[in-house]
């Protein structure tokens, strides 16, 4: 027996077969694909060969049919939704609280005043004087109450008035004295001269005070003139005027034989054509929408970055008491921003990194408890008709879209809000479009916070606005650059453009819904609430007194201006929904393997064997061609061709002798061949 390792050194790098027949025989005898051996072994029996060929082909067909089914299922990327319950400690969500009291910025207060007047006029026009009488009154008081500049100046004049009043009082006193003196005159004529002198004196005083009155009057006029000049200058500088083109109208149309009337306003494009009415069946909606439209135009006058610090309302003015887990909240825990409709907003726990805000236990005592001021005094009456406080519970680092997900808190009520967290995890990739933190989204996010679908839609819409209308919708932030917010001073047709575009967005004709994928990881907060009267009649007195003293709460003792909110986890268990692939690669391979084994009893390595066979066949064919070419060039070598014909008869000897001029080691090759023969015989 020859040890093969001993001569492995002399073995060629790759050795080829002498002929195709040899190759096939080698393959059939050594391959591991079931059936092929039978096919070759039973070559003498035609019947058997046909049978085995058929069997092989049938199982081959079955296999690939099954593979096809499997791959079709895999490439459809089906997902199953698996649900799991988690109960690990987690962070308390971010809570945003708004006081529904937008500022009347000094810069635009004049316009707001005009707008209020316009609104009053419109209502008078639509519903008659009676309907708007209250609004006039309200507006009149508003105008006075809120124009702070005028207010300040008026304060001075009022001081003057006070002095005048004081003088008047003195005069009255003098008059009374005079009357007494008169009586005395009647009684005692001697005193007439003296009292006359006194009368003259008092007259002089009266004159003096009259002069003072005139003086102060003059001052008032002067200050009024100053104010007027100032406002004029302001108006001139901004170059913005409220437009009367968009007045509210009553539109009536004939439908089903009956006359329907609706209220709306007309919007046209820049050339004045393509007009349409934005109408509402209810006049209230129409007025609100109309008011908001104008309000937005006014608000767009404000510089992009409003210096809020100038208007900084400390959180103490809105949140009287804040406790979390039985401990007072920390001063650093809130963000302040101003919302044009919902006023001053404070976000508690906006970052979600402070360990102070971890939720350790479910239940009201371990949640967030707030006492809020819900004043109704200085609201802009036509902007929002609701009173109370707007609250929104959302994830950390997320821009709160209060108009979408916020809810109102009634004043005079203690509201307990139980929350429960739901988590949604999407697979992403091939299994459905989703994005982790905005990566790979075509829309540039205008909000400086983590990705949400809503933020993306807003950004997308803003981009469309800029492209189509040339200016940005004033509710949404602007991208960096020279873009400006819309107002009808600069862009008279923006309203038309906006409403058209908005309709297109709503009917999914803008590509925003396609461009904005869902976030891969989302937290949803399910909310359920209970309410109770607060403060109770019995405790009202001391509670109000304590608040008055500590927080400077100065109001008539009405509980309608306070609200208590408790937000707590109902349970720390959260439901998490995960998408999982129905057919993972792992399982796909497993089932492929099972199929393969079932039909062929072969494996990936068998496939590689076939591949090797093909490669060998190719090389062999090339070599044959090469040899034939050389043979045509030279006289053919007789021995090789003769040997080839011998091969079918006595395979071993022929194969052994078929050198074909290839560099190979005969011993080794034959040794391998020999062993394969044994297997075949077996």
């Amino acid at each position, binding site marked *: 027996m020859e040890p093969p390792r001993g001569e492995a050194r002399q*073995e060629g790098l790759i050795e080829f077969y002498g002929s195709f027949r040899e190759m096939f025989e080698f393959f059939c005898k050594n391959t591991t694909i079931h059936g092929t051996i039978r096919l070759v072994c039973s070559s003498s029996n035609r019947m058997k060969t046909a049978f085995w060929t058929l069997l092989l082909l049938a199982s081959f067909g079955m296999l690939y049919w099954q593979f096809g089914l499997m791959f079709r299922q895999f490439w459809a990327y089906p997902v199953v939704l698996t649900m*799991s319950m988690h109960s690990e*400690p987690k962070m308390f969500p971010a809570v945003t609280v708004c006081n529904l009291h937008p500022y009347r910025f000094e810069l635009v207060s004049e316009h707001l005043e005009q707008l209020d007047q316009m609104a009053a006029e419109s209502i008078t026009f639509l519903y008659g004087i009676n309907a708007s009488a209250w609004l006039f009154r309200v507006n009149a008081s508003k105008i006075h109450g809120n124009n702070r500049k005028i207010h300040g100046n008026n304060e001075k004049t009022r001081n003057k008035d006070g002095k005048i009043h004081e003088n008047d009082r003195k005069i009255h006193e003098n008059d009374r004295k005079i009357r007494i003196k008169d009586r005395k005159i009647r009684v005692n004529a001697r005193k007439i001269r003296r009292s006359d002198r006194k009368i003259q004196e008092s007259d002089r005083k009266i004159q003096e005070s009259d002069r003072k009155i005139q003086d102060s009057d003059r001052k008032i006029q002067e200050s009024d003139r100053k104010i007027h000049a100032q406002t004029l200058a302001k108006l001139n500088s901004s170059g913005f005027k409220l437009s009367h083109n968009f007045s509210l109208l009553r539109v009536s149309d004939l439908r089903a034989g009956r006359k329907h009337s609706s209220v709306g306003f007309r919007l046209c494009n820049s050339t004045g054509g393509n007009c349409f009415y934005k109408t509402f069946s209810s006049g209230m909606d129409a007025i609100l929408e109309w008011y908001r439209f104008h309000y937005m135009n006014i608000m767009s006058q404000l510089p992009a970055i409003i210096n809020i610090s100038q208007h900084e309302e400390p959180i103490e003015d809105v949140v009287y*008491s804040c406790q979390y887990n039985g401990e*007072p909240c920390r001063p650093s825990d809130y963000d302040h921003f101003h919302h044009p409709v919902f006023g001053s907003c404070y976000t508690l726990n906006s970052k979600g990194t402070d360990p102070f805000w971890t939720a350790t236990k479910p239940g009201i005592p371990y949640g967030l408890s707030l*006492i809020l001021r819900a004043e109704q005094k200085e609201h802009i009456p036509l902007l929002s008709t609701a009173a109370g406080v707007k609250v929104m519970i959302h994830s950390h680092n997320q821009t709160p879209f209060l108009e979408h997900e916020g809810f109102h808190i009634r004043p005079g009520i203690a509201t307990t809000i139980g929350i429960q967290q739901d988590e949604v995890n999407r697979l992403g990739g091939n299994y459905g479009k989703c994005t982790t933190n905005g990566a790979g989204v075509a829309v540039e996010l205008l909000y400086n916070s983590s990705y949400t679908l809503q933020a993306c839609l807003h950004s997308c819409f803003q981009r469309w606005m800029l492209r189509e209308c040339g200016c940005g919708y004033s509710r949404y932030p602007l991208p960096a650059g020279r873009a400006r917010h819309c107002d009808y001073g600069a862009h008279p047709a923006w309203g038309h453009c906006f409403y058209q575009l908005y309709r297109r967005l709503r009917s999914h004709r803008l590509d925003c819904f396609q461009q904005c994928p869902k976030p891969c990881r989302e937290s949803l907060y399910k909310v359920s609430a209970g309410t109770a009267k607060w403060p109770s009649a019995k*405790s009202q007195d001391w509670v109000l007194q304590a608040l008055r003293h500590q927080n400077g709460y100065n109001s008539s003792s009405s509980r309608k201006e306070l609200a208590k909110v408790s937000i707590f986890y109902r349970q*720390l268990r959260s439901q998490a929904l995960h998408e999982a692939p129905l057919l993972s690669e792992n399982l796909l391979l497993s089932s492929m393997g099972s199929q393969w084994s079932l039909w062929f009893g072969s494996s990936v390595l068998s496939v590689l064997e076939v591949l090797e066979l093909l490669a060998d066949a190719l090389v062999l064919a090339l070599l044959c061609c090469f040899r034939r070419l050389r043979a045509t060039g030279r006289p053919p070598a007789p021995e090789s061709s003769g040997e080839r014909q011998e091969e079918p008869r006595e395979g071993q000897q022929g194969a052994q002798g078929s050198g074909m001029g290839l560099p190979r080691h005969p011993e080794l090759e034959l040794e391998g061949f020999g062993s394969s023969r044994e297997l075949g015989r077996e």
Partner: protein
Amino acid sequence: AATAPGKKITARLKRTLPVRGPQAPTLSELMRWYCLNTNTHGCRRIVVSRGRLRRLLWILLTLSAVGLILWQCAELLMNYYSASVSVTVQFQKLPFPAVTICNINPYKYSAMKEYLSELDKETKKALETFYGFSEGKSKVRRSVDDWNSTGSDFFQQIPLLKVEDFSRTATDLHSGQKRKIEGSVFHKDSSIVNSGDSNDIIGFQLCDANNSSECALYTFSSGVNAIQEWYKLHYMNIMAQIPLETKEQLSYSAEDLILTCFFDGLSCDKRHFTRFHHPLHGNCYTFNSGENGTILSTSTGGSEYGLQVVLYIDEADYNPFLVTSTGAKIIVHDQNEYPFIEDIGTEIETAAATSIGMHFTQSRKLSKPYSDCTETGDDIPVENLYNKSYSLQICLHSCFQKAMVDSCGCAQYAQPLPAGAEYCNYKKNPNWMYCYYRLHEKFVKEQLGCQQICKDACSFKEWALTTSIAQWPSIVSEDWMLRVLSWDKGQKLNKKLNKTDLANLMVFYKDLNERFISENPANTLVILLSNFGGQLGLWMSCSVVCVIEIVEVFFIDSLSIVMRRQWQKAKKWWNGRQRRSSGKAPQARDLERQGHDNPVCIDEELPTFTTALRLPLPQDSPLPRTPPPNYSTLRLDTAFAEQLPDTLELGQH
């Protein structure tokens, strides 16, 4: 002469039953034999391929297939303990849950006067001192019972303080004198809600009675909270001393609370309610508690077929300092669950009709290897103090109570009593409050280990509530309704009912669909094995048999070859020594020549029990022996058997 027949027999045996096959002389022979005979794919190719590169390629391919199998199977194993969730929605007659209703105010204030007068006086005094608040109309009763006369000492011990932040001095409520705060001040930078002008905060100081320098100052962002917390602290001390029977007397009776009751279209009364005394909420009444063994169920969903009650909330009899809101608290729970009304109760408003729609969901998780939850709570080393079925909430509370009893020596008032302990009050445990606050802080910071010990329950029922509120009674119906209700209430109440004293509550199933969420094992053993089979088949067309084969060849046979080698070496060395001593060198050399280091050839004898046991053979035993049984003949090794003549033939060629 005696040795000759024995030798003959062995020679014959050698001829007829040759040692071959897996008993291959060398490792490489064994591998070769294995590769040619195994059923796994790839291996055979390594041997039969022509060319070194080809061979190398096949070795690499086979090894990578093995690697892939191992990787994929490891992944399958790792995913074995995953659970899939099935959600079934079924329509059925649902058992109505237990509904526990409490008045927010625990005890009738008028009845509590005798216990609380001292405390109230103190509170009013504090309000007057700090806020200039004087309640002109209500006179503080001077009649202080002897019972409570000692209480005032304690009020002085733990007074409300006005803290001036910067100077760290506090004004005592009683003496009015300033005192320096010692020890650590908690929440020093506390209030975000601290008005600009008055920098003082209200709080109280708790000191360790044994070590008076150990003090903690508790301040609050709002005076409202401070006063309520302080009041509650003293209130609990007082309540802890009142026996349960008295407390039940002091609280509301079922007739007091429930004016009308209507369930599933039928009238019900106080007999359907079970009293349940809650330490913080007084007497609560559980509807459908299942106490008498029957659990009611509703025939149809909808508000008409649920529970409808009108509650009498006597706002005038409220404790002004303990509770500040008016209304009732309700909780919907399972009959076996403990109602944690103070934690997750839903409040309902007076002068309103609150309708609460329910959705029933039942969830079941798989326990141990799948997730960390407990079925019954028996495996958790915390004693369940509540006489109800296990829940996480119960475990946390019990754990805290246990820690409280261990470290403070008495039990906290809001939770049930463990055996042999009693509620804290500062007559007996003057130190408890400081201890409690310290402990609670530890608990919140998860230093007590309760959060680690307590596990979630595996199955739980949940009623998702949707609340809506309407004005009630309407202006038109108010008049007659109040009249009728007053008449119903009878002579006991001599005043006319006010609508702010009433609350209407409806609890009903929105629909009778039961959502059942259950986890099932995603993989069974059958699926796992078939996946294993798939992986093995895919890469190498291998089966369990071939795995066994691999174990046999690579571990048992290889090892035996290696061992035999070692044995040969040892034997050679032994022979050498023997030879040196007795001078029998040539024989040994003969043996060596016979078959280089082939152990089969070297061996004179066939493998026997003695060789297998590695016992030294008696070398020159002159006696003939019966040949030992040859076990290796049982092995099938045709390939080798016929290969040998082949190779010989080649050699001759």
